[in-house]
């Protein structure tokens, strides 16, 4: 992704429009991070538009594919029950945008561990993302853990990954050891996938 090519910023008035504009943007050779982030943030979350993708699981957070961007990106909705969180993970050289659709999510950033990591991983920063905010991360920025720290509210987030990826590394916070994992979808295009 390069510097912004056009100066005007998009406004997505619905989830459908957001997807449409994303297809338009990603059809170009050059796509700007700032442009995508601003577009994602411009969409005002309307549960009626995404409820069909928001499938919760009792035991852990779920990944629900919304659009596969003609191979250029994956757009998905993640559903977090109370107390659900992710492991510390990287993003396999891809760009990752995360927008809150409902509730709040805490993002903790970590430094990459030393080559032969054998100590506690170093926390860089943490913040709580509010509804409609959109965060961005890639491997050069660092690693992160995302969690719903609420014991009373669920959370829903919209994620865009480009290029799409289905494996990543998870990291043990105490030692920095990494482990490759394959990610799966709980549902695709609103239909529950059985693995």
């Amino acid at each position, binding site marked *: 992704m390069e510097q912004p090519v056009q100066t005007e910023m998009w406004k997505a008035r619905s989830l459908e429009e957001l997807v449409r504009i994303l297809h338009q943007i990603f059809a170009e050779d050059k796509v700007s991070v700032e442009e995508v982030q601003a577009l994602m943030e411009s969409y005002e979350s309307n549960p009626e538009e995404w409820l069909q993708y928001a499938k919760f699981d009792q035991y852990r957070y779920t990944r629900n594919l919304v659009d596969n961007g003609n191979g250029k990106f994956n757009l998905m909705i993640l559903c977090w029950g109370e*107390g659900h*969180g992710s*492991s510390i993970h990287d993003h396999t050289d891809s760009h990752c945008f995360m927008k809150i659709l409902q509730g709040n999510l805490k993002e903790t950033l970590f430094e990459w561990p030393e080559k032969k990591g054998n100590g506690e991983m170093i926390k860089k920063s943490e913040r709580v993302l509010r509804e409609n905010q959109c965060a961005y991360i890639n491997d050069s920025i660092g690693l992160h853990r995302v969690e719903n*720290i*609420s*014991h*009373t509210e669920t959370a829903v987030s919209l994620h865009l990954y480009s290029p799409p990826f289905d494996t990543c590394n998870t990291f*043990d916070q105490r*030692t920095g050891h990494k482990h490759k994992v394959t990610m799966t979808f709980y549902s695709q295009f609103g239909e529950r996938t059985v693995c």
Partner: protein
Amino acid sequence: LPAGLAQWFPALEVLDVSGTGLAELGAELLCLPCLHTLLAKNNRLGGPGSLPKGLGQAPLARSLRVLNLSGNRFADVPAALLLLRGLRSLSLGGNRLHGIPPDIQELRSLEFLYLGGNFITSIPPELAKLPSLKYLVLCDNKIQSIPPQLAQLHSLRSLSLHNNLLTYLPREILNLVHLEELSLRGNPLVVRFVRDLTYNPPSLQELAGRTVKTRNVPYAPSDLPESLVRYLSLASNCPNPKCGGVYFDSCVRQIKFVDFCGKYRLPLMHYLCSPECSSPFSSASQSSTSQSESDSEDEASVAAHRMQKVLLG
């Protein structure tokens, strides 16, 4: 709750009074015969009288399946709550609980128990008597140890323990065959082999008791004072299968590390009857320090098959 609720809506099955500032749930509840889901989160419940008197005798006691009282002010679990025999799902997340009553075992049908975000310091072993419990959340509390009896929760699929004060886990946790999710991050788990320096040599009474048990010395209640008969009945078997020994009060606590799927090392507490008793998991004698690094090969591969996902990072 509005008066006459049961008259207006006698067939009510789901009632959501979350975020309404309620300080008590009144007797109107007792007349709802079909209510199976009651959501009352983010209110001001918790004081005496939060739940109506006579709850145990009401139809609710048998019909209620789901109760969500998260985000209130409960400092303890009200006894009346434990009379809801049909309850499948209970949430008391984000309250002010300091403990869990042993009578929690009365909720025989419980499958889902959320107690995250309280001030709980310990877990009663009676919690393990819930035969249908599948999902147990104890994150964000002040828990220092897990009772080994918790391994009796045969149906447990997900256990959330992150952000507590655990330094180790009981080795019995390996027995949770159906466990698919386990979160342990944010606990001060020990990462290095810790040699127990506080081993107290057994007393004369203990040595005598051990001999009676291991050599099967016959005795009848008339042979011994009642206190000693009781003492002899409390013998614990040394977990080392090669050792037929028992111990009473004096044992060696030893932390062993078990690899899960070759990625995480969990510190598990083992109890052995004496320092001379070789650990079940090392082929060499116990005096070598390197055993903690390469031990538990068999145990690890068995556990790796069972534990499908351990969220430690």
